[in-house]
């Protein structure tokens, strides 16, 4: 195949990850639904994971992969806690958006 002429270097992956991360950041800033806001954070974490894996491959270092493994656990824990809090709040006032949660200010 001629396509093989072009090799996909680690850099590509890193750039992709960066893009994903940036999208996540944008998401956090524009979405109002706490759940979705949350998903955006997940996007950011995934971007990081992608970076780790890519770098791990480049260095031929398995450590990178185990780090990703830990990150996933962290993400899971965060989701659990986060959803817990959100549930508690949404029980109080359904369909609340983050914009509604601004009693404390100034």
């Amino acid at each position, binding site marked *: *195949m001629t*396509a*093989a002429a*072009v090799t*996909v270097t680690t*850099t*590509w*992956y*890193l750039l*992709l990850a*960066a*893009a*994903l*991360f*940036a*999208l*996540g*950041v*944008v*998401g956090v*800033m*524009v*979405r109002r639904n706490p*759940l*979705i806001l949350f998903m955006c954070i*997940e*996007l950011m974490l*995934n971007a990081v*994971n*992608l970076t780790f*894996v*890519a770098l791990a*491959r480049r*260095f*031929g270092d*398995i*450590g990178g*992969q*185990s*780090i*990703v*493994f*830990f990150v*996933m*656990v*962290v993400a*899971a*824990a965060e*989701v*659990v*806690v986060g*959803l*817990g809090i959100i*549930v*508690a709040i*949404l*029980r109080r006032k*359904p*369909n609340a*958006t983050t914009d509604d949660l601004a009693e404390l200010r100034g």
Partner: protein
Amino acid sequence: MELFVFVVAAGMVLGGAVGVIVRSHPVHAALSLVLTLFGVAVLFVAQEANFLAAVQVIVYAGAIVVLFLFVIMLLGVDKVEDLRIEPFKIQRPAAVAVGAGLLSMIALAIIVSRDAKPPTVTQSEAVQAALDGSHDSNIRAIARDVFSDHVLAFELTSVLLVIAVVATVMLARKPRKGEST
């Protein structure tokens, strides 16, 4: 071939991400998230991180997203968020600016240092042995690495999970009488 895989997966990842940001219905957003996660999983495979790919699909796409959907359904918070109105005028321009700035900076950093000689990383012999081992080297290697070099981190994750449990107990426990939510 490799290129093809990357392009497709990248497409999934970014498409999904954009979806999460722009789909006004929470459920759709969640599904776009799934798309992204699968794309990432594919890229994992392409990066010879098979085990992680599996975990990604099972834990993320499986557990976490399901959890999201579950909450959405449970609380019926599937109210469509009207994305055309934005209470804070500057918010979106700011978001775009930040996103663009962030991306450009990091991309710049990545590109500038792309040809840097990668540092030599030496694996602990246990891991090395695993890597040399013929079959399912990846999983064994991770396992050995996790239980040797990163054992403390591993233990800490357990603490993290304990906290998660306590948290759910605290937050979800039915309030005793005298308390009102």
